[in-house]
């Protein structure tokens, strides 16, 4: 029996969340310290898994653990990570850690806030390490429902009730549609198991795959923000409190994309080939449309929200190529965008907390008083534009290469988004950070505190580090991609 490190990663936030709930409500400091300790521990462990995977040049599913869960139905608790999921586990650790730092100042029921946030984080970890289809759903739903409470209770007063309900219903509909598909797979395979490593070899008929691929893939892709089911996402991002937006855009959307990949493409490869043109069309529309909508937003947070739709469109675009470059790019993009958007939302939250407005025309001159936040946002912006030297380039370049191989004109159309993204990011940097500060804000804005700085630095380091030394991640993701290509080729 090896050390069950993945289980410990999954259960650390869940147990910590439960423990926090047992504290008396007025012990706010103790709650925060416990939360930080648990987040640090989870970050350390997920970093350790990542480093082990990297320095040992591992391939395939590692750190596996298996325990029978409901043997009568072939349900097992089976965890393990491969080159695709290891970066996402690290990403979750990072966002959880920085999310706790950024939310230090929450005064309204911090006990419940951190408890729900941690239950959410535990669910997310659980999905990324799941190798059992049932278990994946189990954790997927655990990751979805705390969102409702987090947004509805601590969110932006004006839209929180509407946005929270919309988001929850969208995601729940998506997941149950996928669930029916999963049950169909379970019975059709005749193998009496939910284990995905075995279902990969089930040999579903092409007809079956074509019928069930779309419900399964799209059901999960709803959470990945795929057009035309992206509608919940900007509303949700905007209404959510800062740490939840970070989690939501940074990690949860990857959850949808990842599950769509793992269950949709990897278990139903023939269906994926058949429908890849449709996924590509949806994704290309999302990329361009998201960028244009982001361009015309005057609300800072909505702008970031729609930019997420655009960037997640790139992930889906990479998936739809079903070739090596495209999938590699998507794998890296999931990590890169997660870090970047977490940083964006963190900075937006910091500015809103001080200026009490997110309207870009009413902001200005933030660079002088909050230089850290400004530098962070600029680095994030460069990542977002796909500048060489930053992680965004490492991710987006292969995606466009992969698309070019399949459909050159889609690559051309989608690349419009790069220009638009550059335009709105630079305009916002100018407006929010560098033009003179409006008079009514003068004197009311103070710099971010040290915890916020730690969070910003950590996130920036990851983006620059990955951009400068792509070999920190690319070979790992490549090993995961090779496995997917094997399934696609073998079917």
């Amino acid at each position, binding site marked *: 029996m090896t050390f069950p490190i993945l289980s410990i990663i999954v259960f650390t936030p869940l147990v910590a969340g439960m423990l926090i709930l047992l504290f008396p409500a007025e012990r706010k400091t103790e709650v925060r310290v416990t939360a930080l300790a648990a987040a640090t521990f989870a970050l350390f462990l997920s970093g350790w898994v990542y480093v082990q995977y990297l320095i040992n040049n591992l391939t395939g599913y590692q750190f596996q653990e298996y325990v029978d869960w409901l043997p*009568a*139905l072939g349900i097992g608790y089976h965890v393990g990570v491969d080159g695709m999921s290891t970066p996402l586990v690290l990403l979750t650790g990072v966002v959880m850690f920085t999310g706790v730092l950024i939310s230090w100042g929450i005064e309204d029921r911090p*006990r419940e806030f951190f408890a729900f946030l941690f239950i959410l984080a535990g669910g997310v970890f659980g999905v990324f390490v799941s190798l059992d289809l049932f278990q994946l759903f189990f*954790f997927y739903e655990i990751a979805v429902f705390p969102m*409702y409470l987090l947004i*509805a209770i601590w969110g932006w007063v004006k839209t929180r009730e509407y946005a929270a309900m919309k988001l929850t*219903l969208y995601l729940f*509909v998506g997941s149950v549609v996928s669930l029916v598909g999963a049950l169909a797979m*379970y019975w059709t395979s005749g193998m009496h198991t939910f284990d995905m490593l075995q279902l990969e070899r089930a040999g579903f008929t092409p007809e079956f795959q074509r019928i069930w691929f779309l419900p399964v893939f799209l059901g999960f892709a709803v959470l990945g923000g795929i057009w035309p089911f992206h509608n919940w996402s900007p509303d949700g991002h905007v209404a959510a409190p800062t740490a939840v937006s970070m989690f939501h855009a940074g990690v949860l959307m990857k959850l949808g994309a990842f599950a769509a990949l793992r269950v949709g493409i990897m278990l139903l490869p023939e269906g994926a080939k058949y429908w890849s043109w449709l996924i590509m069309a949806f994704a290309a529309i999302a990329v361009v449309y998201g960028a244009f909508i982001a361009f015309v937003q005057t609300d800072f947070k909505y702008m970031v929200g729609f930019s997420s739709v655009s960037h997640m469109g790139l992930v889906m675009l990479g998936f739809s190529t079903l070739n090596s470059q495209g999938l590699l790019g998507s794998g890296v993009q999931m990590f890169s965008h997660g870090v970047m958007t977490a940083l964006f939302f963190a900075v937006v939250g910091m500015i809103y907390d001080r200026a009490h407005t997110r309207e870009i025309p009413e902001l200005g001159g933030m660079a002088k008083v909050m230089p850290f936040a400004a530098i962070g946002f600029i680095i994030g912006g460069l990542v977002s534009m796909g500048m060489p030297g930053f992680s965004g380039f490492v991710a987006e370049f292969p995606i466009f290469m992969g698309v070019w191989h399949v459909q050159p004109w889609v690559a051309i159309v989608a690349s419009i988004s790069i220009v638009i993204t550059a335009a709105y990011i630079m305009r916002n940097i100018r407006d929010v950070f560098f033009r003179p500060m409006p008079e009514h804000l003068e004197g009311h804005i103070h710099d971010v505190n040290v915890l916020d700085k730690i969070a910003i630095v950590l996130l920036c380091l990851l983006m620059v580090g990955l951009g400068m030394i792509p070999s920190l991640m690319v070979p790992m993701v490549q090993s995961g991609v090779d496995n997917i290509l094997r399934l696609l080729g073998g079917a």
Partner: protein
Amino acid sequence: MTAYNSTMILAILPEILLLVLGVLVLLFDVVWKGEKRRALGWLTAGGTALISIVTLLIGRPGEPQSVFGGMLRFDWLGFAFKQIFLLGAIATALFMMDIEKLSRRGQAYALLLTATLGMSLMASAADLVMLYLAIETTSIPLYVLAGFLLDDDRSAEAGFKYLLFGAMTSAVLLYGFSLLYGFTGTTSLTSFVGSLPLALGLVFLIVVGLGFKISAVPFHFWAPDTYEGSPTPVAGFLSTASKAAGFAVLLRLFLTAFPQFVEQWAAVLAVLATVTMTVGNLLALAQKNIKRLLAYSSIAHAGYILIGVVAASKLGVASVIFYLIAYLLTNLAAFGIAAAFGRAAGSDEIASYAGLSRRSPGLAFAMLVAFLSLAGMPPFGGFIAKVLVFTAAVETGWVWLAVVGVVNSIIGLYYYLTVLKVVYLYRMEGENEEQYPIPLTRPYALALTTLSIAILVIGVLFAPWFDSASLAALNLF
């Protein structure tokens, strides 16, 4: 008629012990005076728990066999259901302890125990006469309990309405039984041999009778009014144990008496399930009163459980039993919370739950657990229960029914979340919730904590429960 032997005693061990306990309660009701009578609740709950433990230890069935001249079956199916009823009775007795005008009345506890006794017999009855007697033994105490608060008009109305509906459907059921006897020539439950139209006619009559017990649409009209008016713990008992008893009979009757017509009655029940789920959920959307909301939600849940019956497979029956266990824990918790809140706040309106998470974080969290479990969210019992019935449906080819169930669970999620929103998000007028705490007496704290933990445990470690349910299901095939 053979002589009495130990197996026969074991077969009705829970019933014997329940009777003894009921007599004891009535005895102490006379002996104890005033405040001391509150201990009757502890006596009932503790005694029932003891009965449950004793039967688990020494009363387990072996190979299924008929006892008392074929009146009863002594098998795992009946055993599993009896444990479910006992659990329901324990929690209900605890919840009754602090309801004014109920808690210090020995008769209330005795009636509860009698109803439980009747349910136990329902679960193991293998003879039409026995079955009918068992159903009436269950129903009559429940009519009285529903209308127990005599000076409360709504409670009286609840009891009366329940009685009228119950009597009518019971008559239809009896008519069905008499026809079944007429065609088979025996009162014992055996496979019905006859033409299809005849079988369908009988199925229809029986569905009317049992549809009332499980509150399936269109036999559900009594449920919201009765739940709203009756004392809250009694409503909880009606919606869980009483419903489970209905399903116990439904399973045994249909799978024993009409196995060769399974396709036809499954189709009838599939329609019934669809209508029940949909109507229950849609009407729940508009409710302003928590007990009425839970009533419609319990109607919807009857629909989900029917999906498992429709599957009519081993997995289907096992999923029904599992669902009933999870549902019993969850819904008892929900009604317990409503009772605890209602007696402190004096209102059952959903709007009055505003600020609950500040007035009593513990109660609010218990409510979160119960409602998310009702909505079918992991890691709570309701999730795996729903997955199991849907799995059973897909296995036997009822994909469309599973899809209907899935769509309905989305509607369900909406109104459960709406209530949680009030609990966690809205505030009381004046925003001074801390000044209005909700005190939890010991029975409530004990029962709600146990139920919440049980909901979580059954939702995470579901294998042992499912294996027991599968073992019970085997007895029907």
